[in-house]
């Protein structure tokens, strides 16, 4: 279980379900006199039990690691209080994260971000384009490679999006 501070400060006696997704449920609750968010991962019955346990544990660890690392870099993520591995629990979908440095991985991450923003907010093509320009600016050579890779990544897959140029300076 990853319990993290509940920034909305809602106090309940028991856990209260906030939301449920494909991987698990998120609750709000009290823990050691603190208001926390608890994420619990389901066990997948279609998997062999040992494999399921292993996968879930590794994802819990990876998420906790990613959250804490991001925090140390100044990214506003929840603080992990208790990644308890036995009852299938964790927080936020960082479960598939890794620390590989390859341009391909970074390009794919950018692509996922791009698609996520474009699909959830209307008229954000210019915004996304500016984000990528800013990324290039901030990262110099390595970033150039990643963005080149990003162009390649965009050509894969079924749904292709036309690119609008960045019209303002970030």
């Amino acid at each position, binding site marked *: 279980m990853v319990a993290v501070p509940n920034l909305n400060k809602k106090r309940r006696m028991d856990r209260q379900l906030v939301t449920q997704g494909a991987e698990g449920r998120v609750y709000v609750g009290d823990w050691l006199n603190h208001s926390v968010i608890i994420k619990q991962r389901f066990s997948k019955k279609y998997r062999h039990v040992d494999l399921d346990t292993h996968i879930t544990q590794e994802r819990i660890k990876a998420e906790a690691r990613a959250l*804490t690392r991001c*925090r*140390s*870099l100044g990214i506003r993520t929840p*603080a*992990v209080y208790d990644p308890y591995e036995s009852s299938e629990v964790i927080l936020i979908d960082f479960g598939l994260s890794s620390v590989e440095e390859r341009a391909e991985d970074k390009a794919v991450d950018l692509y996922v971000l791009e698609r996520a923003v474009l699909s959830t907010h209307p008229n954000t093509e210019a915004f996304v384009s500016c984000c990528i320009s800013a990324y290039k600016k901030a990262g110099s050579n390595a970033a150039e490679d990643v963005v080149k890779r990003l162009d390649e990544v965009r050509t894969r897959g079924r749904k292709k999006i036309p690119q609008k140029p960045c019209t303002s300076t970030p």
Partner: protein
Amino acid sequence: MVVAPFQVAVAANRAVRAQALGKMATRSLYTEVIFNLSTKKNIMNALKTFGMGEEDKEVLAVVLGTEEEVEDKVTKITQQINGKVVDTSELADLTQEARVQELYKVTPEELKVGSLLEAVVSRMACRDFLTL
């Protein structure tokens, strides 16, 4: 080296759970609590850093058990220490924040997005699979 009682509560919670599961890394419940305050896997090191030292002027004692056991233990402990009992609310005044920051390797960026307590507890909680 303690920022707030919560830090110790988290360490204690983990220790009690580990004991119940038969998975303690150290030999006793209380050394386990001290060990859980550390972000390094070396037990001796943790006991040296977080355990009571010869030169220490302030001591934070942790007592675990049922309500009755705790009352009894608290009495026993206070009798053994030559000093004044102060409320845990005064703990914050005694914390050497700079030293804590150094010890837990907390970054300045992190302190902009959260408290020292959160930074410390995150590292403690993720000790077994995180090197920062």
